[in-house]
């Protein structure tokens, strides 16, 4: 029994949202992996170009983006009401709705539901929400095997690896590496398997077909859930999802609470925005929608688990909440110059790239992912491609501010904070600024042949790869004063 003491706190996100080390350290390891760099460079460039072509075909693309943004903003403004409407609609159609405060609670709900069926193996549709909560690991510790059926997720699972991309979780692997993983870890695989993509797909197909035909329980995520009808939607390319959503007796869907949309007609906007942004296709090959249960057709038992795991806390921050508008297309990953070079593992969380850099720290609280908002040069390419116009650069800057403010609560300021305070003090007064400029000229003593090649820390991070020009003998303002008649202006 718990005693209620005043206002409830929005729960913090737990699960697979934190890395083992800060971004710069993890990134340096990835940067040293030349095979990874080549795989990523090739893959992101291919998807990037495909997306650009698919988007260019749509005359009203900007209007669609504005519509997507507006629907999401309006939905978030009344999120609680839409969720209650969704619960009522799903229940009325024979489904069961469960509310999970965080990953721990969601895992317990799903584990109990699977246990109740007596099944020891479940098939899974690719889902970010179940990755986020670490469901496979939770099921495994309960003696239940979860089989990923999305090709790329299967590659990751067989290779005892981690996903590195929202849409293409095995983007860091090339086909030779995939063949090696299949040969080593796929039971009964043809020992003469080549790295021909068709042969690889056929091997996965044969392996998965047996799983689909025997599974009694399937677990999925959701791309959208329509509040007015109670309809849940999954969008996919391979048809594996359709198998999972139709063959087993029991279907359990884990869905972040931000995935609700008010009306069926809202899907018109998102089903145009999503495929073109994510895979660069006009339409995705498979769009599955289901409403509760239909007697004699498909799963006869349906459970919808609504997951908070930090989302309500994100919603409370006016400047950062639009991170919840994300429809997981991953266009921002593919255009991000940082992601392209480091890959997804460096971000620690299951949500990598620019969206991960604003979502993970908000879900967990900034102190647990403090390095992520800085993992961006603020180049703005992510904002330009986002189908729901999330202003990622502005949120990154906002979160940096939140981090600095949180650090300022500590007794001892960091060296950076001291340097920044000194710089701001110097720059806020013209006399002090001119003095600062004169001090900068002392840098000329460090220069050889018009350039500075080595500086002490922290500026050594600059001179590790770049020179710095010798500070000029005369600043602009000094030059200006030498002009006749200009001295006093």
């Amino acid at each position: 029994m718990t005693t209620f003491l005043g206002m409830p706190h929005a729960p913090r996100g737990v699960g697979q949202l934190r890395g083992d080390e800060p971004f710069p350290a993890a990134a340096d390891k990835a940067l040293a992996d030349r095979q990874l760099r080549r795989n990523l460079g090739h893959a992101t460039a291919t998807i990037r170009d495909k997306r650009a072509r698919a988007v260019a075909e749509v005359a009203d693309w900007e209007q669609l983006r504005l519509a997507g943004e507006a629907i999401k903003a309006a939905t978030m403004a009344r999120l609680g009401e839409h969720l209650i409407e969704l619960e009522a609609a799903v229940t009325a159609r024979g489904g069961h709705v469960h509310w999970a405060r965080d990953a721990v609670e969601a895992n317990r709900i799903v584990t109990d539901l699977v246990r109740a069926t007596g099944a020891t193996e479940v098939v899974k549709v690719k889902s970010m929400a179940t990755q986020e909560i670490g469901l496979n690991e939770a099921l495994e510790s309960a003696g239940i095997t979860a089989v990923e059926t999305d090709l790329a997720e299967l590659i990751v699972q067989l290779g005892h690896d981690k996903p590195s991309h929202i849409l293409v979780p095995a983007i860091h692997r090339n086909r030779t590496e995939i063949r090696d993983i299949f040969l080593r870890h796929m039971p009964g695989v043809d020992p003469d398997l080549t790295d021909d993509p068709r042969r690889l797909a056929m091997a996965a197909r044969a392996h998965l077909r047996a799983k689909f035909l025997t599974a009694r329980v399937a677990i999925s995520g959701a791309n959208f859930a329509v509040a007015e009808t109670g309809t849940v939607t999954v969008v996919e390319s391979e048809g594996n999802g359709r198998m999972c959503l139709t063959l087993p007796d029991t279907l359990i869907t884990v869905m972040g609470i931000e995935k609700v949309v008010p009306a069926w007609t809202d899907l018109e906007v998102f089903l145009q925005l999503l495929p073109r942004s994510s895979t660069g296709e006009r339409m995705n090959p498979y769009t599955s929608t289901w409403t509760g249960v239909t007697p004699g057709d498909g799963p006869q038992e349906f459970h919808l688990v609504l997951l908070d795991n930090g989302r309500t806390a994100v919603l409370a921050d006016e400047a950062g909440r639009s991170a919840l508008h994300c429809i997981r297309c991953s266009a921002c990953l593919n255009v991000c110059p940082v992601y392209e070079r480091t890959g997804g593992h460096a971000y620690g969380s299951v949500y990598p790239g620019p969206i991960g850099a604003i979502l993970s720290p908000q879900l967990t609280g900034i102190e647990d992912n403090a390095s992520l908002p800085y993992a961006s040069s603020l180049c703005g390419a992510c904002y330009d491609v986002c189908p729901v116009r999330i202003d990622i650069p502005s949120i990154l800057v906002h979160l940096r501010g939140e981090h600095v403010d949180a650090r300022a609560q500590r007794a001892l300021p960091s060296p950076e904070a001291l340097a920044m305070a000194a710089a701001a003090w110097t720059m806020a007064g013209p006399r002090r600024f001119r003095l600062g400029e004169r001090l900068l000229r002392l840098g000329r003593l460090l220069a050889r042949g018009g350039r500075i090649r080595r500086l002490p820390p922290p500026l050594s991070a600059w001179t590790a790869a770049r020179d710095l020009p010798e500070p000029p003998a005369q600043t602009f303002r000094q030059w200006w004063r030498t002009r006749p008649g200009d001295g006093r202006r």
Partner: protein
Amino acid sequence: MRVALFATCLADAMFPQAAQATVTLLERLGHDVVFPDAQTCCGQMHINTGYRRQARNLVRHHTDVFEPYDAIVAPSGSCVGSVRHQHAVIARGVGDERLADRAAQLATRTWELSEFLIDVLGVEDVGAYFPHRVTYHPTCHSLRMLRVGDKPLRLLRAVRGIDLVELPAADQCCGFGGTFALKNAGTSAAMLADKMGHVLATDAEVVTAGDASCLMHIGGGLSRLESAVRPLHLAEVLAATDGSRP
């Protein structure tokens, strides 16, 4: 027209030639340039590193200094981007509504050089002569924050004698990103390596851009490679004439 030069702290202290070229160019086009001597820094580094409280003081100082002028021009996409898209947000964030309104007003009178030349003055041919092979790097903030589009390229195409070559993957960031270059130095250097590869592939003598900061980064990398490619601010190319040698 009377134009107030917002030199930017980086150009003032480290790249005075970029600010001098801006003066030369605007005066050659018949305008009266003034330099408000109390100007310091727009606060972009503080804003983008998360030091909002200190940034507010810099925003206020910048607004105080430039408020009396009708037209403010800077040889920088990123500093103008900060004035236009961040100053009011910062002021509002710390609850200073009055400063936010003043900053928002000032933002409407503040222009990046290529915008000012094309949108306000309506000139494309600024009378420059620059007989060199040049490639142009569109800086991220000029491209995606200010949306200058092809304005800098239109100005460059009108320069007599220029051999302008297209930079491959031009819209990719050079990896500077302010304190990003220090906090994520490895990733920044990897981005820089690819940018330099593209610059070198053009066989240009000069790489130009509208921001001294990005040029400091690209130029610093090229210098480390002992490359002969010279970084030159857009203003310096546009200020060049028969008689001058930037």
